[in-house]
């Protein structure tokens, strides 16, 4: 109400011509200039540069001067066997990460929320956030030393139990599990923050009333806690689904090796190898553009559903 009054107040000057309104705020517009120049130079020009996907790239003519080749790059993409492999890997890795990784931070948040001891709670949270601040380069190294077939802790444990060592990082049967588990390990604490916030927002008197009525912990969990965080869960899930084509470039790039390309090569790593390493700019840009378009459609539709869900569950 106060806000509408204020807008009305400002609108008093609405009769004046546009220019005088704009010049009144000239400093605000000036502040926007660096940001706008940045997005034009580093975001919009690359988007325009996607025209290279419809061209046959010639080094000396660059993006803008190379000759057109129509849809050749896309036809080549859809006809290649690699297309099927990288699509399958991208979708499968993302799908497993959601299926197994999505519930973990929710459970973790529920567990942390049940802790009464503040010092213990804070310590667990701080430790759980730690891996989020570590680069994938380091984590890839931690993973390969932990999973090493000769002196890794996991394989030594297996040896103590009389089992044969497994080369987890170099075996196609295990590599996707390594990706999914290391991703969960890195991000579960960080992802729990949002659920902890939602849990902290539940009015405590609901629990008190339930306690007086003789409700058990489990009943409180099922009838108070879970329904209260369902909107958050739905929105987070939709955001994850929207980003399904991002299977985790930095992670795969730092962890994979030629032995596991068949299960680990995702769209982004393929674009890197074909484009940057083999300098087939036109073709790799076509692969990237295909991904960007599908990703954009996914993100927009998931955000739209999330917006709908948000309104329905909150009001």
């Amino acid at each position, binding site marked *: 109400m106060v806000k509408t009054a204020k807008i009305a107040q400002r609108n008093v000057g609405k009769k004046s011509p546009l220019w005088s309104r704009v010049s009144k705020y000239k400093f605000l517009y000036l502040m926007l200039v660096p940001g706008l120049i940045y997005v034009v130079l580093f975001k919009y020009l690359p988007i325009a540069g996607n025209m290279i996907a419809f061209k046959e790239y010639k080094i000396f003519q660059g993006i803008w001067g190379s000759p057109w080749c129509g849809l050749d790059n896309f036809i080549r993409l859809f006809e290649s066997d690699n297309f099927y492999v990288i699509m399958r890997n991208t979708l499968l890795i993302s799908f497993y990460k959601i299926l197994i990784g999505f519930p973990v931070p929710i459970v973790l948040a529920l567990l942390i929320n049940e802790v009464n001891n503040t010092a213990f709670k804070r310590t667990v949270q701080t430790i759980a956030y730690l891996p989020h601040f570590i680069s994938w380069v380091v984590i890839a190294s931690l993973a390969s030393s932990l999973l090493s077939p000769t002196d890794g802790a996991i394989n030594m444990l297996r040896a103590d139990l009389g089992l044969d060592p497994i080369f987890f990082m170099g075996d196609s049967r295990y590599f996707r599990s390594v990706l999914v588990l290391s991703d969960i390990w890195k991000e579960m604490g960080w992802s729990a923050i949002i659920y902890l*916030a939602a849990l902290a927002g539940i009015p405590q008197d609901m629990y008190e009333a339930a306690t007086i009525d003789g409700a058990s912990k489990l009943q409180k969990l099922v009838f108070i806690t879970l329904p209260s965080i369902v909107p958050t869960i739905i929105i987070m899930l939709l955001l994850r689904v929207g980003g399904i084509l991002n299977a985790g470039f930095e992670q795969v790039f730092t962890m994979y090796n030629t032995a596991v390309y068949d299960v680990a090569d995702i769209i982004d790593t393929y674009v890197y190898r074909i484009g940057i390493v083999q300098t087939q700019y036109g073709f790799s840009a076509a692969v990237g553009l295909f991904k960007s378009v599908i990703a954009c459609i996914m993100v927009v539709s998931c955000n739209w559903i999330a917006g709908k869900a948000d309104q329905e569950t909150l009001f």
Partner: protein
Amino acid sequence: MVDSIKRTGRPARNKIRTRRGDRIFAVINYTILVLVAFVTLFPFLDVVFTSITPTEEIVLNAKKIIAAPQHPTFSHYRYIFSGNRQMINSMIITVIRTSVGTLLSLVITALTAYPLSKRYLPGVNGIMKVFFFTMIFYGGMIPTFLVVKSYRMVDTIWALIIPEMLSVYNMIIMRTFFRSIPDELEEAARIDGCSDVKTLVKIVLPLSMPVLASIGLFYAVWHWNAFFDAVLYITDRNLWPLQTLLREILLSTSISELQQGNLLADSMPPSSAVIAASIMISTVPIVCVYPFLQKHFVKGVMVGSVKG
């Protein structure tokens, strides 16, 4: 606030009656969380130990899952720094890109977020869409690479600072925070004769320390951990940041190179120790910083997810 409600709410609940089941649940809960903490810390503990274990002990401990050093030593750290100047060089590059990059990013993010937080600014929604669109449609690795290359930034430190200078996501978090500052405050400053710029510097920014701290941390962490932009844009190894060098060391093509001109070359430690010490150098600084900003970034994450 919520915490205080909880603190006053809990004892009242406990007074009624602690069920046996609740107690069992609490024990299981604490056990699981201790396990989570252990699983999180174990790989780091291993690295910390290895990095300070003398070479002879590492050989002895080869068949142990984890072993604390009997005679801790910093010789592996000395070894890394006593080779050619590659490691020190990379540390300097990382420190420069992190400090300069974070500062520039904070400035451009605040400059963009502040006007966009003003609902009364004519055209503000249209301008916001210009920024928002870059979040949902990504130009792609190859076109971005070719465009940045054409700006002649390749093989300069600017290639590590400018191409990812503004994160629209962080900008939106900051904009949401600016909107929570009462308009009356700025109005009062303006009546007292403050210009827009002065209002931003003297009133808004001092009130925004929490959001500046958390976004500053997000940018700093990104810079500190980034390795791929140098893979794309830096061919000159003298300009490689720490993480890119670390990746090379891990691919163990560089270990021999680190030795070149190394006075201690004949006492070369095992590669696991070199890697462990390198990991420590590249992670400890960030690990020392984030717990102090925890309060702020937790809020930052929440704000960012509530309003898109």
